[in-house]
């Protein structure tokens, strides 16, 4: 127990300075100043107190137990570690000596070394990769690297795409204009001002789907529609316009721009013709076939059957077809059932 405290430590300091302090008290004084360094700093004199190592009592005797062997890294016994190291990397003189110390029996040691040598794998060189040819690459043009070639081709494709889009836009905007000598503007006084009008194109108005009857009627009597069109094309001419037209005394002829009739016909007239005539006629033809097949239902069975197959192919078996047979094994009717449709039809 420490007998020195803040009330009496100065007496011990005096003993220390006079050299009469005992070794026990000296140790206690050192510990006291370690605990309360401020008292040491407050002293007028500078004292240097240090504990002296006087005996071997303080030496740690269990050092050996703390020492580690490289084998501990591998969690292996020293002998196994040395034997494996001998196999892997070879041993230096110290390690060889250690091994002799661990295993003094030479025969046993040789056997152990031999046992470990058996753990070395040997490659089976008869085993070969048979698909080497699949990985072999060829160079078409040795001077040009393949990556560069690929990039060039990709760039060329992109440029070509942009060019084609640009050209399409250009052709759409450059609609040919046709000059005409007719001027319908009322504001013209001398009649010499000329107007330019675009080539009149028939605008395809979104109509409702024509009925079956109208299509059949149109297909049977196309002239009737033409009559209607002629009637519709009659334009009522007012007296004011007639006066205006009669007031024009001089007519300046213009040099009209040439139109590529083939191109005009192909781009403008052909779609209209197809839309007005061919498609309607084709549709009417289909309706006629259906009517005929309804009159002879047995023929339509094959059509229905193939239609069901197509629908099932496209919509993953959404339509079911059931056939009915008579005693002779002939189909006498069928039933088609889908999500939104159900049809019962007799064939005989």
């Amino acid at each position: 127990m420490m007998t020195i405290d803040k009330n009496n430590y100065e007496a011990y300091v005096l003993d220390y300075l006079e050299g009469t302090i005992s070794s026990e008290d000296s140790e206690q004084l050192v510990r006291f100043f370690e605990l309360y360094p401020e008292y040491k700093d407050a002293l007028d004199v500078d004292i240097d107190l240090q504990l002296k190592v006087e005996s071997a009592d303080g030496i740690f005797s269990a050092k050996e137990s703390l020492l580690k062997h490289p084998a501990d890294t591998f969690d292996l016994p020293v002998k196994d570690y040395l034997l494996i190291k001998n196999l892997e990397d070879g041993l230096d003189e110290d390690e060889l000596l250690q091994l002799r110390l661990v295993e003094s029996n030479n025969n046993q040691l040789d056997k152990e070394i031999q046992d470990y040598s058996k753990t070395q794998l040997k490659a089976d060189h008869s085993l070969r990769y048979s698909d080497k040819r699949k990985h072999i690459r060829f160079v078409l043009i040795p001077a040009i690297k393949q990556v560069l070639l690929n990039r060039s081709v990709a760039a060329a494709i992109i440029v070509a795409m942009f060019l084609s889009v640009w050209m399409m836009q250009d052709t759409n905007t450059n609609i040919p204009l046709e000059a005409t000598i007719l001027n319908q503007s009322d504001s013209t006084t001398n009649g010499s001002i000329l107007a330019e009008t675009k080539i009149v194109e028939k605008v395809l108005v979104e109509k409702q789907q024509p009925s079956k009857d109208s299509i059949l009627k149109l297909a049977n009597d196309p002239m009737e529609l033409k009559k209607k069109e002629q009637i519709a094309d009659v334009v009522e001419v007012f007296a004011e316009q007639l006066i205006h037209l009669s007031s024009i005394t001089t007519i300046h002829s213009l040099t009209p721009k040439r139109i590529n009739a083939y191109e005009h016909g192909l781009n403008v007239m052909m779609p209209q013709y197809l839309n007005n005539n061919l498609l309607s006629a084709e549709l009417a033809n289909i309706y006629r076939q259906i009517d005929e097949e309804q009159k002879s239902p047995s023929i339509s069975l094959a059509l229905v059957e193939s239609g069901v197959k197509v629908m099932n192919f496209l919509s993953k078996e959404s339509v079911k077809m059931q056939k009915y047979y008579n005693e002779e094994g002939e189909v006498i009717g069928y039933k088609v059932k889908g999500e939104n449709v159900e049809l019962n039809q007799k064939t005989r």
Partner: protein
Amino acid sequence: MTVKEFNQAVNQYSDGVYRFVLKSIKDEDKAKDIMQDTYEKLWKKHEQVDFLKVKSYLFSAAYHTLIDLTRREKKQAPWTEVNVRTHAHNESYSDLNEVLHKAVERLPDIQRMVVMMRDYEGYSYKEIGEICELSEAQVKVYIFRARKFLKEYIGKIEILV
């Protein structure tokens, strides 16, 4: 690496990589798929890969594909599924080698792979570490522990025989 060097890498190293892969997964089709994948990876980067390091690159690519595959499957194919005659047996093989291969199959994946790289290809610890993204010390530990296991396994079988 040029195309010529790439082709040289195919001819020179594909057998070794294939053996390594096949011994690891014991499935010929999967091994060929991994080979395809490995060389495809190399082809995509062949301009950046130095020919002197192409062998390590190939083993590394194959190793990582193998690790991904084994992690996905989380189970090894049983030994009975292996075509023993084709893959493990050779006329020159002794009984000891068959025992050794059975023992190798029982090693953990990572230990088996590093031992194979060490013995089949003669890679150093450092090279194996680079291929498998392990430290040199880790590689050494795996190999030493694997050797201890193999030695004990062989010893037990020999006693039984």
